[in-house]
């Protein structure tokens, strides 16, 4: 690693577009990821996450725009870039005939600076399965082997495409711990995920993709800011939605039989709600208050063009 390469960000994307035939999967996105950062790319199926990731990983050239990894073009300088990156595909195959240990051993033979097999298997908690044929692993175990191969070369930049899909909750938490460890060592991580709590928990910054463009981007706090808090309650007996008061100027909406308010601040809104209830001798059973989450942002985007189109996860 020369000092020269240090001055480039880990990832730089400028006005990236990528089409398959007539279909434009990514329609002009730009972002940059600093070294050591954990960046999460979120979005529904068909939003363009995996396409974006596969361009960053050097699988495809951009249709137009510019992509640089450590200042290098990942498509034309593939081998050089990949010596410093690790890739966990959304779906990648193994040789079912080989055992877990044999797979890692074989991979080490063509990986620079490869960690010892035992060390990498311990990292993903697969030591006990070392002698098992890959064809006999569970879905979650295969994901862990995926992860083992992705971190085999101690990458400076790690791509994780839906890393915890198919894992049980325990394995998911173990994966999060591993990702946090890698970050503590200075690894830059680019993550796509369906699990919003995963992004909320791990990411420094997120970008939410929607139909090939970035709909929202920033730190989790920034993306959530201005979204306010949610107050929800079952409709009180004998009350229609229209009978409920406005709170801080916000009218309620109906969702799953509950009245839902989105308010800038919850305390004064709650005070107003309680005052209203007390004047009518109503009990507010089942009242819930929570702060905005990425899920809300996400659902808002999905709502914007319902009915939701179904698309391949590309």
């Amino acid at each position: 690693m020369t000092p020269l390469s240090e001055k480039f960000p880990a990832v730089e994307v400028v006005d990236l577009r990528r089409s398959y035939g007539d279909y434009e999967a990514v329609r002009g996105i730009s972002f940059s990821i600093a070294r050591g950062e954990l960046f999460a790319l979120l979005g529904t199926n068909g939003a363009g996450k995996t396409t974006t990731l596969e361009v960053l990983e050097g699988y495809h050239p951009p249709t137009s725009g510019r992509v640089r990894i450590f200042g290098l073009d990942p498509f034309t300088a593939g081998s050089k870039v990949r010596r410093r990156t690790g890739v966990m595909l959304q779906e990648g195959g193994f040789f079912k005939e080989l055992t877990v240990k044999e797979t890692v051993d074989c991979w080490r033979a063509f990986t620079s600076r490869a960690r010892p097999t035992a060390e990498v298997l311990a990292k993903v908690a697969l030591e006990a399965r070392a002698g098992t044929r890959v064809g006999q692993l569970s879905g979650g175990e295969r994901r862990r082997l995926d992860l083992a191969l992705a971190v085999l070369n101690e990458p400076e930049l790690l791509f994780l495409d839906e890393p915890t899909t198919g894992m049980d909750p325990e394995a998911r938490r173990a994966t999060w711990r591993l990702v946090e460890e890698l970050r503590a060592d200075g690894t830059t991580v680019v993550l796509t995920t369906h699990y919003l709590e995963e992004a909320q928990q791990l990411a420094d910054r997120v970008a939410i993709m929607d139909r090939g463009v970035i709909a929202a981007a920033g730190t989790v706090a920034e993306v959530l800011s201005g979204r306010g808090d949610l107050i929800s309650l079952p409709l009180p007996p004998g009350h229609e939605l229209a009978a409920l008061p406005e709170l801080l100027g916000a009218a309620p909406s109906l969702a799953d039989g509950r009245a839902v308010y989105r308010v800038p601040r919850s305390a004064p809104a709650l005070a107003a709600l309680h005052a209203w209830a007390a004047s009518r001798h109503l009990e507010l059973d089942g009242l819930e208050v929570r702060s905005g989450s990425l899920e809300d942002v996400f659902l808002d985007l999905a709502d914007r063009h319902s009915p939701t189109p179904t698309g391949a996860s590309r």
Partner: protein
Amino acid sequence: MSWFTYAKGQFALSWKVFWRNRRSTFIGFLLPVLLNLVIAAPLRDKEIGGVNAAGYVAVGLLGLALVTSFVNLLGGVVARREELVLKRLRGTECPPSAVFAGQLGAGGVVVLIQALVLGGVAVVWFGAPLPADPALLLLVLLGGYLLFSVLAVALSGVTPSTESAPLVATPVLVLCMFGAGVFTPVAGLPDWLRGPSGALPLSPVVRGLRTAWFGREFGAETWAGGPLRELDLLHGWTSAGPSLLLLAVWLAAAAALSRRLLRWEPRRG
């Protein structure tokens, strides 16, 4: 890491997978050896064109071993692609050329072992002579292997799924097995079949292998005919010239095809 180190790593991977998979071990290794015992061995006491007939067929089967390795490679490349193993390998620092060099190299070493087994049986049991021109023999074997392995990579691109690989491979296998003079001389075929038969990719290989092994001018031999003309080393090469040329043409065509057709990932659904 150098390109050679990457290729060596890929070789080791393919080698291990080849022997671990029963199907590839059978088709890619055992089939020509079994055919040798069943078809060549009973001809031990016969002669054709002045040479031991069992040895004649054994050398033909060595040619056929290139086609069984083709069948195996075609299935292997398609399976790797459809199961997204190729995609995974392409995401590593290993250069794509080294990925294929390793896979083709492993298949090549299997063919070399088959050459030793088939040749050893022919010499020790059937009483065939040692190869007259080992250099020419190796050249034809290597050229033939390159041709059929590159052809396998090319045809993998038109094979939509693992299940359909036999549909693409079997016609090539059957045509080469019966049309290229593996078991019985091409001269025994009806006139109208001789032209197309001589143009099959395996034909120049089988003929070249026999010329190199027995040091005689093959091509016109028949079961009823007399001994073929013996050739010294120099005339062995001039006699094999047209075969080598035809082989080179096939190889160039296969290489061009593979550049056009090779796919790294399944078609998008």
